[in-house]
């Protein structure tokens, strides 16, 4: 019977201090690893007979503008289909040099999800076969889901708009 404790134990046995910050976010075990280490951990989780995380559930990025040198976070969520257990792996990268190794060769799922993360956050997935924008127009020269691009505040009062009064 696979449990979160066993998963954590196996990861620590294999990677030692390179995996850290194990925490339960509601029902999902979450941990952090060095960004250059992401493929090693992913393939270990996938290939290990005991762990068997053969399914990449989701991949996305988050922007934390106030975290110096850890501004962009890439989140991988994996699932062991047979045991029905999900885990989440996080890596952080500075926004000035957002290079992360691509997981496409381990999980084909990552192809479009990484393109999406690139499109919205500008994470540069090194080795990706076709890293171009997927949702936005190719000519766009910024990454719209970063926090510096604010949507208009809906409670603003300084705007005189008789036609669409707010």
């Amino acid at each position, binding site marked *: 019977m696979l449990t979160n404790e066993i998963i954590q134990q196996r990861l620590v046995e294999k990677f030692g201090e390179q995996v850290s910050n194990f925490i339960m*976010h*509601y029902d*999902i075990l*979450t941990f952090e690893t060095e960004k250059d280490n992401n493929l090693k951990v992913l393939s270990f989780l996938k290939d290990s007979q005991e762990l068997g995380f*053969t*399914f*990449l*559930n*989701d991949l*996305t990025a*988050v*922007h934390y503008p106030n975290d110096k040198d850890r501004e962009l976070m890439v*989140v991988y*969520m994996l699932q062991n*289909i047979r045991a*029905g257990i*999900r885990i*989440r792996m996080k890596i952080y990268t500075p926004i000035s040099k957002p290079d992360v190794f691509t997981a496409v060769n381990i*999980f*084909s*799922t990552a*192809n*479009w*999800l990484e393109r*999406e993360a690139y499109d*919205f956050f500008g994470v540069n997935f090194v080795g990706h076969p076709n890293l171009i*924008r*997927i*949702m*936005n127009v190719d000519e766009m020269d910024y990454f*719209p*889901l970063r926090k510096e*691009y604010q*949507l208009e505040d*809906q409670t603003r009062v300084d705007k005189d708009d008789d036609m669409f009064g707010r």
Partner: protein
Amino acid sequence: MNQKSNIQLPEGSLGKQTTTLNLGPTHPATHGVFQNILEMDGEIIVDAVSTVGYIHRAFEKLAERRSYYQITTLTDRLNYCSSPINNMGWHMTVEKLIGAELPKRVEYLRVIIMELSRIADHLICNSVVGVDTGAATGFFYVFEFRELIYEIFEEICGSRLTTNIGRIGGLERNFSDIAFQKINHFLKTFPKAMEEFESLLNRNRIFMDRTIGAGAISAERALNYGFTGPNLRATGIDYDVRVAHPYSGYQDFDFSIPVGSVGDTYDRFLVRNGEIWQSLSIINQAMEKLKDHDPSVFHANLPDFYLPLKEDVYTKMEALIYHFKIVMGETELPVGEVYNAVEGGNGELGFYLISDGGRTPYRLHFRRPCFIYYQAFPEMVIGSMLSDAVVAMSSLNLIAGELDA
């Protein structure tokens, strides 16, 4: 001849001319706005590229400006063939974040709504597979019953397609007697129509010849591509979120997961038909279970998060205060990150919500099943005929709204 440089011909083969064919963005076969650029050698597809994003509406960015109860309307517009499932998935995500427990009756009412919309979703997909193989009869026939389902939704929440059904903490109003009558009418009349629909296509020689072997994918590749829902189950893997990670009281129901074997269009068709029967059985069980519960309960006691009834807002002081606090975002929300998934019409629909305790999510990511499995489409159709690609595409149940978010 200028297209030739795109493909690698085997050594010593005669120079062939291939044609580039744009299937989409607006093409009757795509049933939505997305493009497939096919490289054709006669009628054989030798290369394919899919382009998406034509109706991207920036839902994830918009969600960062909207308070929690306002995001429900965004989820309507993901998979608009089964909006109620998306709505419920979002409500359950927030309920998981705040740690709310719902009364059993609310969960069962939600199960009824979700299974009805699953039937509607599968009916559209399967009857459209019929249309794409030349059998429009089934399509027109089952749409009568999709209409009955939409009338039930109309009775429950007032709208039909983009439903905005339910609230955080329960439903916005109780089911009326007419709603129960309509559900019972549907449960009584639909099975016979479904049997006829199955007898029209299931063992139809023409239909079988068109769909068997078209757009097949192996279980291993499907897992690697992140397939979920009926498309994954058609390959023989019995992964269903309702069973693997039960939510909304699904653990109380007795149902089976139909699986296929080779993952082709015919298997996907049969799996969806099987699921329609299972959904019917779940609704029947839920209607039976409802009898044991107080018929007046339709929401949890969560005054901080559940939008109060309008008549209370106008007449009661507490309701007015809570209404104001919820709308203005004055309620305390926990800080944390939560992932909640529901079994949507076409796969695992997940909500990854990061809350910083503010009025709006810090980040909300939708795990949209058809965005993830559509990237396997080129691999599924290369080497097959154009007409196989068309039926394979409609049997994947691609919904442009969900694809592009």
